[in-house]
């Protein structure tokens, strides 16, 4: 009976205390202004970092609305004197929608594959103590320590041999494969917290592995699946090395690579490049605005202690 009832994914390693089971309040809600806890140096430092973060973002955004002529005459931090949407139109005309669609296809496919095969594996690793499943877990942990991009040349060779070079599949397969270690680790940590009795009673009622996966594991691990899915999606969406090495044609180009080619094609048209940068950010920023909590949880997936 070593199971805990907590089903919280990230705080698995919550340290045991001998104090009564009252958890220390996670957030102390101190009054923010001019209480005895007001931290003036901290506030100044925070404000300084805020400025450092905001200025480049502001510059990118305002530049994307400048015409090529006012770009050189306006002061960099002024509002655009003749705001224009022309740069965005230009980016749209140069095939942005196609690149966007490619990015969406690659991200969704890679994340679904990675999360599905990892869930199967994590279920086995968490619930089956056979030596094979323990070895598998050690391999997965090792995979976290290795800079996997070192595998890029053999991957290029393999995919060329398979005739997959310059296809979306060439991006999906390795992206999914590289997402497996972190996904398995997070899901295993989560699944180990599901009380064993639930599995035992279902087993005794004659449930097959697949039924338990479908009726028990999947519904209970939903929060962890969302967290790890977001984490992987960000990684695949922003990934650069695979597209750079494994694709070539504009028809299979994804967004980060498209940005880079815009830079080579437009070179001096800085407002055009910045419009492309802004457009590549929009989907993730939208996600951030509507699902901030889950996105932030996803960003630190697995590392959040």
């Amino acid at each position: 009976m070593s199971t805990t009832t907590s089903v919280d994914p990230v705080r698995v390693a919550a340290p045991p205390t001998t104090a009564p089971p009252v958890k220390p309040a996670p957030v102390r809600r101190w009054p923010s202004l001019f209480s005895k806890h007001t931290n003036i140096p901290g506030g100044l430092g925070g404000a300084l970092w805020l400025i450092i973060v905001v200025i480049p973002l502001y510059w990118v955004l305002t530049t994307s609305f400048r015409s090529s002529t006012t770009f050189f005459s306006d002061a960099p931090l002024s509002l655009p004197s003749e705001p224009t949407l022309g740069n965005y139109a230009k980016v749209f005309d140069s095939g942005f929608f196609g690149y966007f669609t490619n990015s969406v296809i690659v991200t969704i496919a890679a994340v679904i594959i990675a999360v599905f095969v990892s869930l199967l594996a994590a279920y086995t690793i968490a619930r089956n103590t056979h030596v094979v499943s323990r070895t598998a877990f050690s391999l997965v942990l090792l995979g976290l320590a290795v800079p996997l991009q070192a595998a890029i040349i053999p991957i290029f060779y393999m995919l060329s041999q398979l005739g997959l070079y310059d296809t979306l599949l060439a991006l999906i397969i390795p992206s999914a494969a590289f997402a497996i270690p972190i996904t398995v680790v997070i899901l295993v940590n989560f699944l180990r917290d599901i009380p064993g009795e639930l599995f035992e009673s279902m087993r005794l009622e004659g449930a097959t592995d697949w039924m338990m996966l479908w009726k028990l594991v999947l519904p209970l691990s939903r929060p962890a699946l969302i967290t790890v899915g977001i984490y992987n999606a960000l990684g695949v969406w922003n990934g650069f090395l695979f597209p750079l090495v494994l694709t070539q044609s504009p028809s299979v180009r994804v967004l980060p690579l498209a940005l880079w080619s815009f830079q080579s094609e437009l070179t001096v048209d800085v407002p055009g490049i910045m419009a492309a940068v802004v457009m590549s950010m929009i989907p993730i920023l939208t996600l951030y605005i509507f699902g901030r909590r889950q996105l932030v949880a996803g960003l630190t997936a697995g590392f959040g202690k």
Partner: protein
Amino acid sequence: MTTVKTTTGSIRAPRRGAALAARQRAGGPSLWFLLPAALLFGGFAILPLLGAVVLSFTQWSGLGTPQWLGADNWLWFVTDPVTYTTLGITFAVMFGSLLVQGPISMLLGVWIARSGGFRSFAGLIFFVPLLLSSAAVALAYKNLLDPNFGLSTQDGFGWLAHNWLGDKNTVLIMVILVIAWHFVPLHTLLYQGGVRQIPASLYEAASIDGAGRIMQFFTITVPQLKYTIVTSSTLIMVGSLTYFDLIFVMTAGGPGYATRILPLHMYLTGFRSAEMGKASVIATVLVLIGLALSLALTRWSGFSKMKSQQEGM
């Protein structure tokens, strides 16, 4: 109900095979469930990593079939002066990132761990850089830092007027700072989470004893954050081996060799100079450094033991 079922289970179990009984008690699924992940990860991560070792002994341009060569590539790697330049730059980026990102993220994390109007607002904005692709960050800074039309032409920013990315004495520092801008949010999040797990009672006891805020920071906050510091530092150091995309887009490793970190050296050697065998040597070295770093950090910090930091409380 659960208990009843469990009891009947343990009575019934001996009638079947021992292995099945064990599996049943655990409710464990078939090992076949490991297969899809094993095929995918084995086939497209482990096999290629081993493949890199094999390819490092061949000559291959990227087209046609690799030809067996022997140890020549390794000999090249050890004797080529560029190797040591890139190794030096890689470690400079690694420790530079550690020195810049570590303290900033810790202070910011400690600061935003408490709630409050301005802190919450700042926290909202702080994380935006992390959401951008490295390519986007690199393009933004490449143009922002341009001495002719970048930020330095703004009144009050004249001190920025320098060809930062074109001067081989300043480019590496700039790269480290841009990487910090991009990744400080991740580590801030880690520290924020770590600070929120420190029991408030520790601080209360300390202030009764008359410890000031700075004293509390060094005697309570920092020691309590030990594991967060290790996690964050490991991520920064191993991550330094993967800052390929940002540097590639921003400087392409230049000027000269000034920002050619190891992964970039691998890419340029393999895919630009069509020397896949030599590039595979670099790939192998990259894996070895990554493994050595992770092992050293977990050993040295006792992280693998994962002892509670709050024993006796």
